[in-house]
């Protein structure tokens, strides 16, 4: 059957620079590059290319580039080329459209419409190279009550907390959705940086228990890989209620990926599909959630904070208010730009709300209700730079979760083809010869470099504002001004417009 679809992108080869080394041919797992012996030249089948840039990056003479093919249907403001092609694709397959990574559609990015303040004349900026600048944060519940013993000494009644060298953590990506080497890179980087990474729903590989103090172990609706040692191996436990890329939807790791170590880590038979239900079947209310929170606290002997991760959806403020009363120590909110290894396209692109609005709303609501100190707030869903982190903290976050940025540091080029399982960069794949393309010795260093660079930038930005600790920046919305936002947006964000 004709599929009607012309490739969106084409690989352009400059034969004047091509030296026939065939690195492109050897590196393309999609079979898009082929060496034709009759003409002694490599050629490309654009229809198989996913635009992952592996060949472009490895080409030693820069003979390759990938450009938009530019093929178009008759111009139509209503029916875009993409819309028409998606209909063709579904008419061909009869299936739900799948996508990977974060929502790429043209919705407003509020972080880009917010500007930061700096000190001038009346209050001095701080030079982080000469003066102390604190980027350390501590996550968990805080009690107002100060207790003293009979000799009037302070009693440490702080619930268990986690400590981070900077307000960043690597967010949940399961072993299965990403490779062993990607996990090792994240774990080693988290250890060196003094931050945390997150196991995701796939359990924790036996080799990685040694990174326990830098690990958040996740309990999701499928409960894959959850057992007592697992819960006690991490620094915190996270209950995953939802994911920004696919709120209201469970997960599905196909049986073809449940092999060897992954089957063992997930505690399910080889070849069986790992289906995470949309709901937790034991949670239908905040009271039910409270039971799971306390079950996990009981299992970990009240030594670890429990985090509840939810997707940013319409009633996020009320939901967060409930979670803050459920006994959870940390609320993680995942915005609609958050990434995924596979999600139905329509869900990813149409469900959820921007993280900036969700964060501002939740922080304000919890403050109004006087329960902000019950929980720490961690936000994720496309935190792309140090400036995004500073803005998120000033909007009220205690820390941020990053995942896409971390994968990009590892080589991901956002081709959004994770669901095919043939990641040419060795990240979102379980094919051994592809997995080995990500050398964790290189990967973890790149992650450490990125975070160190961001830490310096955060210090510079804070110093410019005359602020010397994350704690003083947190919820400091006076440091923010909106640009090109309407009254309602400014009201929800709780910030003034630039010039005000």
């Amino acid at each position, binding site marked *: 059957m004709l599929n009607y679809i012309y490739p969106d992108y084409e690989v352009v080869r400059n034969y*004047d*620079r*091509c*030296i*026939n*080394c*065939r*690195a492109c041919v*050897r*590196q393309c797992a999609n079979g898009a590059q082929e060496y034709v012996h009759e003409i002694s030249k490599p050629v490309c089948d654009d229809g198989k290319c996913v635009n992952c840039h592996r060949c472009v*990056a*490895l080409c*030693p*003479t820069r*003979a390759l580039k990938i450009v938009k093919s530019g093929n178009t249907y008759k111009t139509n403001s209503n029916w875009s080329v993409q819309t028409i092609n998606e209909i063709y694709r579904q008419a061909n397959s009869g299936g739900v459209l799948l996508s990977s990574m974060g929502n790429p559609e043209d919705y407003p990015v509020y972080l880009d419409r917010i500007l930061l303040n700096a000190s001038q004349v009346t209050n001095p900026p701080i030079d982080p190279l000469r003066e102390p600048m604190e980027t350390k944060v501590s996550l968990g519940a805080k009690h107002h009550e100060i207790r003293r013993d009979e000799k009037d000494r302070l009693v440490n009644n702080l619930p268990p907390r986690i400590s981070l060298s900077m307000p960043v953590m690597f967010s949940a990506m399961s072993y299965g959705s990403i490779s062993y080497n990607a996990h090792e890179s994240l774990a080693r980087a988290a250890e060196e940086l003094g931050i945390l990474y997150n196991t995701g729903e796939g359990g924790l590989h036996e080799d990685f228990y040694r990174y326990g103090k830098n690990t958040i172990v996740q309990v999701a609706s499928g409960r894959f890989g959850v057992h007592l040692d697992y819960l006690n191996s991490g620094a915190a436990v996270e209950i995953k209620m939802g994911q920004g890329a696919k709120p209201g939807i469970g997960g599905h790791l196909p049986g073809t990926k449940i092999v060897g170590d992954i089957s063992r880590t997930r505690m399910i038979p080889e070849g069986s599909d790992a289906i995470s239900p949309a709901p937790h079947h034991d949670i239908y209310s905040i009271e039910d959630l409270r039971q799971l929170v306390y079950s996990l606290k009981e299992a970990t002997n009240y030594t670890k904070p429990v985090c509840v991760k939810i997707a940013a959806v319409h009633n996020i403020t009320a939901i967060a208010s409930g979670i803050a009363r459920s006994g959870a120590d940390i609320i993680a909110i995942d915005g609609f730009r958050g990434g995924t290894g596979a999600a139905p396209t329509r869900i990813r692109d149409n469900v959820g709300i921007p993280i900036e609005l969700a964060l501002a709303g939740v922080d304000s609501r919890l403050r109004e209700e006087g329960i902000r100190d019950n929980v720490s707030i961690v936000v994720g869903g496309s935190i792309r730079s140090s400036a995004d982190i500073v803005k998120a903290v000033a909007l009220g976050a205690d820390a941020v979760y990053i995942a896409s940025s971390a994968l990009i540091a590892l080589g991901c080029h956002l081709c959004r083809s994770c669901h095919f399982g043939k990641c040419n960069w060795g990240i979102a794949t379980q094919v051994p*010869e592809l997995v*080995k*393309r990500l*050398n964790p*010795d*290189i990967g973890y260093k790149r992650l450490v470099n990125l975070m160190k660079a961001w830490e310096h930038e955060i210090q510079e930005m804070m110093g410019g504002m005359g602020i010397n600790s994350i704690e003083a920046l947190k919820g400091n919305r006076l440091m923010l001004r909106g640009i090109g936002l309407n009254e309602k947006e400014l009201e929800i964000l709780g910030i003034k417009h630039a010039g005000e």
Partner: protein
Amino acid sequence: MKRVYVNEEWCLGCHLCEYYCAFAGSGEKDMARALREIKISPRIRVEEHNGISFAVNCRHCREPLCVKSCITGALTITDNAVISIDGERCVECCTCILSCPFGAISRTPNGGGAIQKCELCVKTESGIPACVQGCPNGAIVFEDAVGRTVV
């Protein structure tokens, strides 16, 4: 005393080391101009079998058979323990090629009148061997021989 070591676990079999090697010996500034439309003859070669691949070049043996077998003294061990070839003295008898257990010596391309082998890029400007710099996955490293098995 640094040496080139190859870690099979991370070798992707992309063969780029061969091309960076050939480029390093070309004297050209632009790789495309140096290597276009020629058959390269690198001093490092990727061996592949059954999905396993790794690059092989001169091991700079402590007791090198090639130096022993060289009838003109063209092959010598230099001060920094690199086995070096003096093209002026080589008479192309090829005994070294036959005696090298690693197959790391070959004839120069285009009838250059001598043999060629890896000299750890000591005769080029880079300092770090080109294959090491060019390997995209850190599979070829330039490290001290301390603690490693020396042939």
